[in-house]
């Protein structure tokens, strides 16, 4: 395994941890934060490929991560607002209870 593969393994594991959290926990806030972890894992991939890319390419990887962080910030803001809105309506933020849209 070379350094790039180590980085990718790291990001895969982080992704898995985030996914496990998002799947296992019932609290909407933790689920959202698990999603953030997954996004972070994706960002790690960008940086890793940028760092070890064979060509001295322009900083596209870095810029992509910057955009990704911005989108993550937007996602967090809207997500937390949704959580608060759900709480106001249902007095709970447990995801298994928020199933009004079931078939």
């Amino acid at each position, binding site marked *: 395994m070379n350094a790039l593969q*180590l980085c990718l393994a790291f990001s895969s594991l982080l992704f898995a941890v985030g996914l496990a959290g998002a799947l296992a926990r*019932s609290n909407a806030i933790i689920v959202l934060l698990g999603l953030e972890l997954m996004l972070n894992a994706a960002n790690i991939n960008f940086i890793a490929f940028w760092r070890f890319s*064979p060509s001295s390419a322009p900083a596209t990887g870095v810029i992509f991560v910057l955009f990704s*962080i911005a989108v993550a*910030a937007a996602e967090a803001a809207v997500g937390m*607002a949704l959580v608060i809105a759900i709480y106001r309506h249902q007095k709970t933020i447990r995801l298994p209870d928020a199933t009004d849209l079931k078939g």
Partner: protein
Amino acid sequence: MSAALAIVALATLGSAAAAMLGRSLLRSIFMLAVSWAGVAAFYMWAGAQFVAFAQVLIYLGAISMVALFAVLLTRQSRDEASPPPAALRRAILAVVAAAGVAAVLLWAVAHSPLAVSGSLAPATSVRQLGFDLMGRHAAALLVVGVLLTIALLGAVVLAADGAQERPGDEP
């Protein structure tokens, strides 16, 4: 080099796992903050200083704050009750699914022929980054700006108290 990476990775993964497993919501968030800081450390390790600082500023400075606010506003500040059996089943399923994904990803990483260039990080000055952002990626930057604005407005609208619209709602 790899030792530093290993330390950073272990700290990040460990705190992330602790955050996902932890019973106390606020502790989870603090552990996540540590994990995000670890990711920032990884960026530093990879030579992407600017991204690292942006990560700290956004994740530690903003997103964790938003999460803390959400916790306090939804009055979840004390520990969760012990999980019901259904939650246990879900947790097992979740771990199985996540393990599957991890296995697939790791297998792919291990079996892909990935070329690695020289050991030096590509030199990207902040100045060059700025020119790139304002030049080749200006349109994307604008779109992201609009997205952030709209997301902010949307968040405010969502989180704003709708009580005055339904005066008879509150007991």
